[in-house]
């Protein structure tokens, strides 16, 4: 048998069920590798000793009917974990110990999984390179001094480096799909309302969704079946019949109508991305899909809309960090002074920038011109998708307009950083599901991803299309363990 860390999640589960491997052996393998991989800075909080104890407990009293029996998993540090520090990558929550568990992580532990620890991310999930974290930037396992993407950068890096067999991230404007694309892994942003937001540190509530990050599409289907659930603790959770997405997974792409939106051919897009997209189109066509040119005319307005809606919601959500009930507090000469100093010292620059944007667009006299305007454009963007989905079953695009960039390359120009999310943001604005799968490498050997966008609650369909493309593409991640 190959090394434990080289197995997919589905294979690990099978091996544990067949008693070829114990939970302790698996957990130990990941812990040992994480100990050798500190240079990547993927973990904010390690919980290895507890994980090993839990693995022992599982082996002494195993339940093989669970879907993740004794499987160790590290998660993004945006999910509240009961009695284990949850920071959201921020100084303001540096010492916060939640008294409750997020529904999504609860679902995973209920299926027998074991928490390894909490993974680095951009502060409050605001960033596209994991450089805004108070706990330092994350290194990509692809190459030294390369960003893993963001905001789920620690998650992407830990998975691609094989420090965890799967992980979960959150995606507000591309925070699962962009880092997945940068590190050669699979990432799914589910339909809004599919996975509960309860216990996830809130960024922009009308856009936030949790989703799986995995080595392949089968693993993704398994994880999605587990984390998606109706939850009355989240007022926008939707009560619909969830499937066993893994059981129903098949390579059905034949006869599927796949739309290619012309507006995604953006100016200045590198030829490598163009070629990758064409490769995806060719494969889909050869596999029997019908390729249809479509138009999403308001695509160009998605990013400006996002940079009004998301900061507006963030400024409201982050109003709770005032230094009173939890988190960091700075001394002030009176209450107001304490608030102002706490928030000035507790938040990093990107978070402050977005709170300022949000406060401005919601302030008296500017609300109509910015926030209301953005909500109206958001409607137009959603209408574009509704129109196109009368003609096609799914949409195929590149995941990002470029491959990963160097650490520090884009930190001085917020707008150039925001442009990273040009292909992912429209999907969040419309509440749709989308999956990024690794599809090739650029000249430098950095991974590139393709994105398949589905109709609302049509995750099974995009998983099936991804499964079919994955086989033909036969992507192999080139990770040479440079940090060990």
């Amino acid at each position, binding site marked *: 048998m190959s090394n434990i860390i080289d197995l997919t999640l589905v294979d690990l589960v099978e091996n544990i069920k067949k008693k070829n491997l114990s939970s302790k052996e698996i957990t130990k393998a990941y812990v040992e590798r994480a100990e050798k991989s500190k240079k990547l800075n993927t973990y904010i909080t390690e919980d290895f000793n507890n994980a090993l104890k839990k693995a022992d407990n599982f082996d002494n009293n195993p339940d093989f009917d669970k879907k993740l029996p004794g499987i160790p998993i590290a998660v993004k540090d945006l999910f509240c974990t009961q009695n284990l520090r949850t920071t959201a990558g921020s100084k303001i929550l540096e*010492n*916060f*110990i939640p*008294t409750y568990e997020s529904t999504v992580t609860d679902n995973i532990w209920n299926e027998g999984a074991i928490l390894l620890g909490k993974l680095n991310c951009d502060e409050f999930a605001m960033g596209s390179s994991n450089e805004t974290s108070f706990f330092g930037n994350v290194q990509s396992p692809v190459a030294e001094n390369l960003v893993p993407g963001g905001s789920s950068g620690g998650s992407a890096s830990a998975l691609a480096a094989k420090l965890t067999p799967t992980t979960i991230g959150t995606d507000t404007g591309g925070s699962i799909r962009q880092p997945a694309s940068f590190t050669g892994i699979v990432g799914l942003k589910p339909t*809004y*309302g599919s996975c509960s937001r309860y216990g996830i540190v809130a960024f922009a509530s*009308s856009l936030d969704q949790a989703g799986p990050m995995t080595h392949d599409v089968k693993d993704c289907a398994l994880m999605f079946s587990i984390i998606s659930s109706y939850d*009355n603790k989240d*007022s*926008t959770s*939707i009560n619909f019949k969830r499937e066993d997405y893994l059981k129903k997974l098949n390579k059905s792409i034949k006869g599927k109508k796949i739309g290619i939106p012309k507006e995604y051919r953006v100016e200045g897009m590198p030829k490598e991305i163009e070629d990758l997209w064409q490769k995806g189109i060719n494969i889909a066509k050869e596999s029997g899909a019908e390729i249809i040119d479509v138009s999403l005319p*308001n695509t*160009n*307005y998605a990013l*400006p809309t996002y*940079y*009004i809606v998301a900061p507006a919601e963030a*400024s409201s959500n982050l109003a709770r960090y005032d*230094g*009173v*009930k*939890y988190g960091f*507090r700075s001394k*002030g*000469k*009176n*209450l*107001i*002074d*304490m*608030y*102002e*100093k706490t*928030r*000035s010292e507790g*938040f990093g620059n990107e978070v*402050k*920038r977005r*709170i*300022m*944007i949000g*406060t*401005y667009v919601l*302030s008296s006299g500017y609300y109509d011109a*910015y926030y*209301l*305007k*953005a*909500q*109206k*454009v958001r*409607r*137009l963007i*959603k209408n574009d998708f509704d129109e196109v989905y009368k003609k096609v079953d799914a949409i195929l695009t590149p995941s990002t307009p470029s491959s990963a960039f160097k650490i520090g390359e884009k930190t001085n*120009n*917020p*707008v150039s950083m925001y442009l990273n999310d040009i292909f992912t943001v429209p999907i969040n*604005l*419309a*509440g749709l599901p989308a999956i990024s799968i690794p599809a090739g490498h650029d000249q430098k050997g950095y991974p590139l991803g393709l994105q398949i966008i589905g109709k609302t609650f049509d995750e099974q369909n995009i998983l099936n299309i991804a499964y079919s493309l994955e086989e033909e593409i036969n992507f192999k991640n080139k990770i040479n363990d440079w940090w060990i």
Partner: protein
Amino acid sequence: MTIDLKTVKKISKLARISLDEEKAKKLEADLNSIFEFIKKLNQLDTSKSEPLTSVVDVKLQLRKDEIKSQNIRDQILKNSPDENKDFFVVPKVVE
């Protein structure tokens, strides 16, 4: 339109984030470049578009208001930045 230093300072007051002069100037430049980018939306005619407030078409559900967590008072207070085992403590607000 441009955002001047005075506006930046006003927003920082509203957002309860103190700024020194240097940070305020840096933010002025950042915000202007971001709003320059956002300005693009004015090209669009949205007079016939209804604002989209939620992508999900559901009525908000009511649930019973029940206490589910038990005996976590001490744990909650432990997260408080000012050490006091019975209350949340803030600087004096009434003279």
